[in-house]
């Protein structure tokens, strides 16, 4: 999310854990929604179609 670059009010101690949490979220969504691995695609097939991810 681009929002991580718009931290104007928070302290450094707050930004870093939030950035890590955002990275974790991006990794999860990216893996389940975009992985080309056959097994991941097949397991998440109906999910990908239902959430309108580009699928095969």
């Amino acid at each position, binding site marked *: 999310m*681009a*929002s*991580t670059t718009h931290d104007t009010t928070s302290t450094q101690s707050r930004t870093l854990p939030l950035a890590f949490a955002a990275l974790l979220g991006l990794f999860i969504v990216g893996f389940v929604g975009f992985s080309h691995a056959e097994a991941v695609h097949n397991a998440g097939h*109906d999910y990908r*179609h239902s959430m*309108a991810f580009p699928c095969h």
Partner: protein
Amino acid sequence: MNIFRNVVFVAALAGLVAGLVITALQTFYTVPLILQAETFENAEPAHDHAAPVATETAPAAPVEAHPHDEEGWAPADGAERTAFTALANIVTGIGFGLLLVVASEFAGGITGWRQGLFWGFAGFAVFALAPGLGLPPELPAMPAADLVARQVWWIATVAATGAGLWLVAFGGSAVLAVVGAALMVIPHIVGAPQPVSHDSPIPPDLHHDFVVAVTITNLVFWMLLGAAVGVFRTRFARGLEAPQGSLA
């Protein structure tokens, strides 16, 4: 470390709730249409479900064959397939929840379920509505452009729309609001990758019903996710040391 843990905790609870509910909705509204579309896919011997490069083997696949059994593991139809759909919904519910919580924390945090509905709608606009304008929800057996090109456009559109919406809402100046609005429009001027031909074995009525079902179930998912974040954040993460009483 408290901040990270609390963000993950709130996102996990909200993602679990929203993921379970969306699975039930999909079971009734979207999955039956996917299964119906797969009958057209199986009836088309030339179509290769798994690989975009259509130089595979399999001359005339048997009509009864499952579309995924050419290669690789796939869950068995029925309960197992539904279970993996539920798992994907819950896991990505947590992933989307993380993104929603983090984005809202930078704006002071979601302070209740009603505010959560608003943030959820923003998530719907960014992750479903914007990419869906150029790449409407697809059914199996429908023609589509190169997978990687569509994935790149999808990700770029989501990033640009998210950044644009943020600038409009929190940019704080007219110039940034205009830049934000432009960011939301530009992906659609560039245009999503389209197939050479839209000729499809899928009846238009079936696809129409699917687009409607996907859009509405996505809307419910996101509003529920936002509301759940608002509820769990106020209930479980209250009183933590933080500027503006926010989660972190």
